């Protein structure tokens, strides 16, 4: 079935079709329409779940942790300050190896209050042990949320997974999306599995005091799980392709084979970049695009090109673009910081960035630098 709707409504639909037993969420712009829609699904009986209308995002993740630890599938969604307030529990979920799935609608961090797209919120959670997938279209939002459960709940992974996409640019923009039948989704997603659960017949304690040696063992195993996740994400993406006609990988290449410069970007800037590549090609420039879909685990080994232009909608202040810095050493890399706080980045900007890189320039795009 093909429907036309906003990414947030599509995300709510995808979450519903993954059949979580517990949804815990707190409203924040621009995530709100996801949790409103989910509340409706639960109240009208379309989704058989307990909906916990928590009093904060910290509690939203804590409730998901409690539920997942008791042995059920969970879902939550947030944005920006909500994700930051949640940060402690974001770590807790990963260290507990609970396969929670969360949507983060990317939004800038205040002050001043800015509700527009910016990836610094989720990229700031880089080291928490969550798998992070960035979607560039509403279709990718749908497909990635369903896939996220299968990835997170894979026994070689067992890590929580975050689906990220741009506030408003996607969250509130309608696009056509193919929605598979529920029965096919049910077949694709196995029963909920977890590494451990709270069971009165097999009592265990989770998370008491741990020695340095055992703690390091836990961290090592999380890193192994992240490594395992690369293959699992690819396998799940291929299976999705076989069953639903759209395959996914860690990155998506577009006209990279003969490219002089390959643009590396994520989320909405990546889909805009695709259009820019065509325009650049029309001008006779051999431009290519490598869309970074999965930010953690980071597919550094796949992003090897002689000349790369990285466009970051996030910055590590005092160092530079986040993805740019992670790709340094993989070739000649030109890093651009653009679009922070929702500042518009359209295909003309991307073409300009390309031409600046050709001249050996990089840095903050769209700022008057004296």
């Amino acid at each position, binding site marked *: 079935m093909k429907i036309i709707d906003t990414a947030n409504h599509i995300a709510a639909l995808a979450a519903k079709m993954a059949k979580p037993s517990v949804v815990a969420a707190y409203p924040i712009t621009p995530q709100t329409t996801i949790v409103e829609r989910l509340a409706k699904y639960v109240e009208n009986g379309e989704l058989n779940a307990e909906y916990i209308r928590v*009093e904060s995002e910290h509690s939203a993740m804590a409730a*998901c942790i409690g539920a997942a630890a008791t042995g059920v599938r969970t879902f939550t969604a947030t944005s920006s300050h909500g994700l930051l307030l949640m940060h402690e529990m974001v770590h807790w979920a990963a260290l507990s190896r609970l396969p929670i799935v969360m949507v983060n609608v990317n939004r800038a961090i205040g002050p001043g209050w800015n509700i527009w797209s910016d990836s610094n919120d989720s990229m700031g959670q880089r080291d928490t042990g969550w798998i992070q997938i960035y979607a560039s279209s509403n279709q990718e939002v749908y497909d990635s949320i369903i896939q996220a459960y299968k990835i997170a709940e894979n026994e070689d992974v067992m890590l929580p997974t975050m689906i990220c996409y741009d506030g408003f640019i996607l969250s509130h923009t309608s696009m056509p999306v193919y929605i598979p039948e529920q029965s096919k989704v049910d077949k694709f997603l196995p029963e909920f599995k977890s590494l451990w659960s709270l069971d009165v017949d097999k009592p265990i304690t989770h998370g008491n*005091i741990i020695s340095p040696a055992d703690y390091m063992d836990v961290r090592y195993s999380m890193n192994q799980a992240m490594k395992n996740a690369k293959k699992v994400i690819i396998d799940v993406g291929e299976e999705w392709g076989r069953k639903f006609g759209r395959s996914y990988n860690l990155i998506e290449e577009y006209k990279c084979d003969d490219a002089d410069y390959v643009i590396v970007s994520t989320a909405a800037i990546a889909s805009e970049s695709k259009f820019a590549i065509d325009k650049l090609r029309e001008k006779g420039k051999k431009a290519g695009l490598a869309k970074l879909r999965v930010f953690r685990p980071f597919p550094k080994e796949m992003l090897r090109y002689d000349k790369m232009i990285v466009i970051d909608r996030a910055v590590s202040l005092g160092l530079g673009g986040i993805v740019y810095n992670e790709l340094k050493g993989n070739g000649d890399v030109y890093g651009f910081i653009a679009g922070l706080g929702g500042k518009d980045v359209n295909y003309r900007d991307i073409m300009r960035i390309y031409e600046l890189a050709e001249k050996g320039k990089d840095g903050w795009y769209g700022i008057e630098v004296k």
Partner: protein
Amino acid sequence: MVAIKKFPEEEYILKGTAACPGCPITIALRTALKALGKKTILIVPASCSAVVQSLVPKTSFGVPTLNIAFAASASAASGVAAALKMLGKEDVTPVVWAGDGGTYDIGIQALSGAFERGENFIYVCYNNQMYSNTGIQRSGATPYGAWTTTTWTGKKEIQKELGEIVMAHHIPYIATASIAYIDDLYDKMKKAKEINGPRYIEILAPCPPGWRFDMSKTVEIARLAVQTGAWVLYEAINGEVKLTSYSKMLLKRKERRPIEDYLKLQGRFRNLTEEDINKIKKNIDEKWKRYMEIYKEKEEKQ
């Protein structure tokens, strides 16, 4: 009331814990779990109780236990309760087991949220009136005048009345208890287990190293707290406050032992001036005046 000798013999706290000798937490938890039984899931925030469990991969707790971040126990318990409902396991009771720091202070938002939502779990606060696990710092539950490592000259403020804050949430069951009156504690736990919705039980838990008294006196101090009227045992069932017999008989001031009997055994009150003691007395008297008024109203209604 169940006689002590008839308490179940099952132990859910296994010998050889990491608790300090004379710890009130394990006294309370041993009996609480005897009352609650095997079908209990504990949710424990950062606290002494997290340490008491001993080191991974061993635990001294014989029921499933979820350790959780300091501010998150009531919300994690909400998640556990929701999952149990979805799994059709509503005969299992989620029980938060938190200290006063995790309840009065950092955990109060999650607690208030969960109580307002009517979540189905028991919240137990064992109140040792300070952050004992981190080394005896003052909390919102520390009484006026008490020495702590962040109030070297004695706390200047009066503790908050969390029971009254909880009462404003219209939950079905609230009770206070004491490790000294262990049959009453057992009884209240049993009663709470049979009720649906949020239930709040607060247990006064005198801490030997924190309150500066000999480790053999844990129960004695807890008893004195009740006998002097410093700690009041009551229940509030659907909002109706009822003093527990041990406290009800203290409604007349002359029945209450002098507060000095309680204070003088504790090193944390060593430096109280007469003025300080008078302030503590006044605070206790005011509290009891409120209970007197509640009872007068009750009598008038009848």
